[in-house]
């Protein structure tokens, strides 16, 4: 899609609002519907839109696959690390009350924010990587079958 001027302009206009909306869904997950999973998918959708219109190579320049690999792993590590930390300071696994011993409610808030961050990282990175893997395949479809 090299010559599609209208598509390129509109896509450039749309990508920033989509990412902003993903951030809104992420941080508003405690108040309104939404949370880490939904925000992750929306953020991945922004990258996929970029890859669709500007080509896979441009998307891989903007968000390198090695970086996405790191994000995918760090999401699980953040989530599990929260649980291990709460275990290390004397509670049970994923017992957020221990994160702030004086105000357990604040500990719960902190724990939920961390956990949602981990979900966001893993889900968005996985979606982007699956898109990269599918989009990068050469097509085996012959002229006859098409």
């Amino acid at each position, binding site marked *: 899609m090299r010559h*599609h001027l*209208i*598509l390129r302009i*509109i896509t450039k206009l749309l990508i920033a609002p989509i990412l902003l909306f993903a951030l809104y869904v992420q941080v508003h997950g405690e108040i309104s519907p939404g949370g880490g999973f939904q925000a992750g998918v929306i953020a991945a959708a922004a990258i996929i839109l970029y890859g669709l219109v500007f080509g896979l190579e441009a998307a891989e320049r903007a968000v390198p696959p090695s970086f996405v690999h790191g994000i995918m792993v760090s999401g699980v590590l953040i989530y599990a690390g929260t649980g291990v930390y709460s275990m290390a300071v004397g509670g049970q696994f994923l017992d957020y009350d221990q994160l702030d011993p004086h105000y357990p409610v604040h500990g719960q808030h902190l724990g939920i924010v961390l956990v949602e961050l981990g979900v966001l990282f893993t889900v968005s990175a996985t979606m982007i990587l699956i898109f990269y893997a599918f989009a990068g395949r050469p097509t085996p479809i012959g002229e006859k079958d098409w």
Partner: protein
Amino acid sequence: MIGTAADIASWLFIVSGSAGIVISALGLLRLPDFYTRLHAGGVTDTFGAELLIIGLAIQSGVSLITAKLLIIGLFLFFTGPTATHATANAAWVAGLKPRLAERPDERPDGDNP
């Protein structure tokens, strides 16, 4: 007084928007070939959607809901015509010819399964 006026205005917008939406769907179903259906699915559809959203926005007063409605309207205003443009461009490049008046019996050769 102002409340009544706003109600009437929002009624007008919502009913005319609904009429536009039904007309666009009828056109999508009844018009003879793809390029004429684009007008129903693109122009009339966006028109009806915007009118409906303006009507809803008037109904909800000044609040966060109004802001969200206006953002939805803005997105639809940009993405609808762009998607229609992309569809028309792809169809034209792929060789789908419009049905012309000289040969009224010619059907567009699609990929009818």
